[in-house]
């Protein structure tokens, strides 16, 4: 096997004591900055870039890659403990992760996230090892039309995530889309909604918006409660995931690995979509979907696994084709250039030691992260013992520093505070920030890709049928809608029968929070209902056959 001998060569590079040290430095730094909200891998790698110029190229890429996937592990910690998502993909983790913390199950959430991340990451590296060249070509099949389809799928999933009413989710997603139009028009470059503010030309910063709506809003809310109430609330029940937790999460981790692996290959937006898709899938498969958003461990395990798998496969377009698929990888691209190495189709043959060395180092790095993170979970959850007032003040300080560090812009600090207040008002009125933030991430890609598609096709919508990638994804969406319509119809007829036999069932519906089925525009939302369970039909309809 050619690949195995190459991988062997890679391990001989990665196991060099100096390179081992740099893997360790990378993953430790990555975890540390992942924990500090706002200070993401982008800012850190930018800061460390000049240092890597003096290093051996292989060692420097091994370290930078370690920082990148290490930060994915670290990012989970604040999402779960403080509801502070540092990047788009961890937004999904806050839904159930933070609820678990409130129930005293922070340890289980973090533990399962670490295990899932390890498995997802490893599966993705194995895939990267054996399938990279083939998969690289798949990434190319995604043109503007394909991205439109992918983003539509994403939005579709977004509106199905909330725990509250669907109308509220959809309206929040709409607000998110609207906010994403702030900044320069992607096609003609004119300024939109900038009100003469230069920093707004590049739009609102994602991290500032997400940190504000989730983290700062939550900090404000926690100040309303008395200290005693909070101590009880955050009492830590068990540190490790129980056997049952592991059993519950096994499927989610397996499916998350596969989803993350394949979706992660797509340049741009892959990470968010994969964790979204994983969450939606787990919710759909669950026996009792109403647990989601209230501390379901699968809701943490699946998306976290998918997120880590996709951050690993994001390296495929860079290593195989020389195309950096996100900002962090663009900086790693820059670091390689500084060493006189151009990432491109020839990288694998011209610099095979580096190529395979980096891949081998990922196996080692993932293992190190698992070993590091398991004991760290115990330490991090001690953070919850800190007095609320101190924790809140300290978190806010770190959030502001982190947000500032992204663009070196004090404007973003005002943005985070403003969105904090908005998020607090939203929580008072029962609006969920999740759909808003996720739609905000997907919006610009959707708009740009749609307008590019229209320019390419000369304004004809045919492109979404003739483009193979778009056709497949839209076909998938239609299939889901059709499936949902059929099951919905069956349930309705079955429900009519059931209600004639047992009219009492109506108040036994556990899905009350999902909203009435009939005015649900999103087929995935209530696709959750399982045959045999009392159907969540509005009372009026339920009674009509008998009346």
């Amino acid at each position: 096997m050619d690949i195995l001998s190459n991988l062997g060569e890679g391990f001989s590079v990665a196991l060099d004591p100096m390179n081992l040290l740099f893997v360790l430095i990378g993953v430790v730094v990555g975890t540390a900055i992942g924990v500090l909200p706002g200070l993401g891998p982008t800012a850190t790698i930018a800061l460390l870039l000049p240092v890597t110029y003096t290093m051996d190229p292989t060692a420097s890429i091994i370290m930078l890659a370690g920082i990148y996937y290490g930060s994915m592990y670290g990012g989970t910690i604040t999402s779960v403990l403080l509801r502070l998502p540092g990047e788009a993909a961890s937004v999904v983790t806050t839904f159930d992760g933070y609820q678990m913390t409130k129930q005293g199950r922070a340890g289980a959430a973090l533990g399962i996230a670490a295990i899932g991340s390890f498995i997802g990451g490893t599966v993705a590296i194995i895939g990267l090892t054996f399938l990279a060249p083939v998969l690289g070509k798949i990434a190319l099949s995604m043109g503007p039309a394909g991205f439109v389809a992918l983003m539509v799928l994403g939005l579709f999933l977004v509106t199905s995530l909330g725990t509250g009413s669907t109308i509220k989710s959809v309206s929040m997603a709409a607000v998110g889309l609207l906010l994403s139009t702030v900044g320069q028009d992607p096609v003609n470059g004119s300024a939109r909604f900038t009100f003469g503010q230069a920093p707004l030309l590049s739009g609102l910063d994602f991290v500032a918006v997400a940190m504000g709506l989730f983290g700062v809003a939550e900090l404000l809310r926690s100040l309303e409660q008395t200290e005693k109430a909070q101590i009880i609330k955050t009492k830590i029940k068990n540190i490790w995931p129980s056997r049952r937790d592991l059993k519950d999460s096994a499927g989610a981790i397996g499916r998350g690995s596969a989803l993350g692996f394949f979706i992660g290959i797509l340049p741009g937006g892959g990470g968010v979509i994969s964790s979204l898709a994983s969450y939606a899938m787990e919710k759909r498969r669950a026996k009792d979907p109403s647990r989601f958003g209230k501390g379901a461990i699968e809701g943490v395990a699946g998306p976290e696994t998918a997120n880590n798998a996709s951050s690993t496969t994001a390296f495929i377009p860079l290593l195989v084709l020389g195309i950096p698929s996100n900002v962090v990888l663009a900086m790693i691209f820059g670091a390689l250039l500084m060493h006189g190495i151009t990432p491109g189709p020839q990288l694998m043959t011209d610099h095979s030691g580096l190529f395979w060395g980096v891949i081998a180092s990922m196996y080692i790095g993932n293992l190190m992260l698992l070993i590091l993170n398991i004991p760290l979970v115990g330490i991090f959850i001690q953070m919850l013992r800190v007095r609320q007032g101190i924790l809140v003040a300290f978190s806010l300080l770190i959030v502001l520093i982190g947000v500032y560090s992204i663009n070196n812009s004090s404007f973003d600090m005002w943005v985070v505070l403003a969105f904090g207040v908005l998020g607090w008002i939203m929580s008072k009125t029962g609006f969920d920030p999740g759909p808003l933030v996720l739609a905000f991430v997907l919006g610009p890609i959707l708009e740009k890709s749609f307008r590019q598609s229209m320019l390419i096709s000369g304004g004809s919508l045919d492109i979404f049928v003739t483009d193979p990638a778009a056709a497949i994804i839209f076909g998938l969406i239609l299939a889901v809608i059709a499936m949902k319509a059929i099951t919905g119809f069956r349930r309705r007829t079955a429900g009519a029968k059931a209600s004639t036999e047992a009219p009492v069932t109506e108040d036994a519906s556990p899905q009350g929070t999902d909203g009435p089925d009939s005015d649900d525009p999103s087929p995935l939302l209530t696709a959750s209902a399982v045959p045999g369970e009392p159907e969540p039909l509005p009372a009026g309809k339920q009674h009509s056959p008998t009346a």
Partner: protein
Amino acid sequence: MNKTRLFSAAAAVAGLSLTVTACSGASNASEGYPAKSVTFVMPYAAGGPSDTTARAYGACLGKLLGGTFVVENLDSGAGAVAMQKLAGAKPDGYTVGLSTNGPLVLNPMSNDLAYSQDDFQALGTMAEIPTLFAVPKDSPYKSLQELFDAAKANPGKISIGVPGATSSLATELKRLQKESGIEFSMVPTSGSAELITNLLGGHIDAGFVNDYVDVEAQVKDGAIVPLAAAGEARSEAFPKVPTTKEAGYDVKTTSVYGLFAPKGLPQDVSDKLESGIETCSQDAEVISQIGDRFVPNSFSDAAATQQVFSDMRTRYEPILAK
């Protein structure tokens, strides 16, 4: 060699932490310039060719003049934030910045911003990135002529990618379309990486793109075919490919990375910086970091650099003026 690089990196890191504290001291700029660390603002994010240029020159100027140049990436507001900071800084040589067509010329022309080109003075050219027209490998268009003829025959049917809606490449192509009547369907992407992906995947018919190492790697691989170099001279990487002028079209642009300061720098400070750039542009380390073919062989001084950008303004004013 390695040791000196290590040292300069260490110095840069140390300087970073000292920037805040080392503000007192000689404010009389001209005498012992630089007496404290110099802020080097960058209108783009870390990792791209402009960042490489800023860091290579920053390190070299620091060594040469005996100070520290701290690169500060301020990429928000499409570079406008960095330019605003530079325009508002004291003209004492302790704030300088890299700039190029977009943030310096095009952006203030098409948007209401608090600065204009007149607020800055050029100190010299650090690097130049040429541009070229390219098609995917199995494209039916084998020459620039064929591509442009196809666009003439089917107005608006031939799609051509440009890296960014406000890039100088997009603006230049707009100018060509306006003046020649040839009508492409221009597809702005978020940058070179996305443009190359779309070319490789065959989603667009052609691309007008920076002739940088990322494109060069794809050409070497045979995945992308260059049709014409859109500059004064042929590309050093592809000497067999004609220029646009040779192919019979007036379409050309180059990304010139100049060093700028707020207007009104003391003469001796600007002289020091200008000759510093000249020396650094011949420095082997700077050349190897940025890439030999992107560092001009003959130095383009302050006056020449200023001229390049005022020519640019004249050329694009009719297209972009508000």
